[in-house]
């Protein structure tokens, strides 16, 4: 397992941030939550999201915590990512949200 603070040369690693709107009709219910956590777990980076820019932040790798957010359709998900593969991680979770988690 690589250390997650390796990406920036010195000081605190800057989190990468981006947001996306939940488009799938049922929001972040059980199945999308599972997909999001599975996607997040594929990366070493710390991946968190929130319904507001200032948080509170939820660990995107925890299926129970993700489901508890109960984010509805139309909600904006703010992501905060730190880690060596942070850029790829952020791109992957954003693509998932944009794609409606593969649901129509």
């Amino acid at each position, binding site marked *: 397992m690589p250390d997650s603070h390796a990406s920036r040369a010195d000081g605190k690693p800057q989190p990468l941030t981006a947001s996306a709107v939940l488009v799938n009709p049922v929001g972040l219910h059980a199945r999308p939550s*599972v997909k999001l956590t599975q996607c997040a777990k594929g990366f070493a980076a710390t991946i968190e999201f929130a319904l507001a820019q200032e948080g509170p932040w939820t660990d995107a790798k925890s*299926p129970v915590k993700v489901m508890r957010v109960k984010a509805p359709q139309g909600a904006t998900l703010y992501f905060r990512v730190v880690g060596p593969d942070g850029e790829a991680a952020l791109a992957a979770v954003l693509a998932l949200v944009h794609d409606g988690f593969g649901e129509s």
Partner: protein
Amino acid sequence: MSQANPGNVGIVIVSHSPKIAEGAADMVRQMVGNAVPLAFTGGDVDGGLGTNVAGILAAIEAAWSPAGVAILVDLGGAETNSEMAVEMLPEDRRARVVVCNAPVVEGAVIAATESSGGSPLAAVKRSAEEFYA
């Protein structure tokens, strides 16, 4: 997704009702996919509602993974019979099987989600048990 070093933790579903066990397993397969060894058992030896140790042992065998097996149970007898089944396992396997204190359906989906990401047995159990936290 299968960097199978020790592999993904196996999931066993034990319910008094064979239909619940099968249905919960269906949910896991559909929501989480096939990257996780999964087995289910339900009913007593006569096919009625209940659980039986032999069935649980067979399910553990079917879902076996070097990374271990997490068992999700419903009520009383399912838990005690599962614990009995674990005690009957060969010693080297016994320490790698845990019974989760979690709701059987939700716990199975969460445990499998955790497992599908390659998490170790302790993390799989902890995540399933977050439902009661």
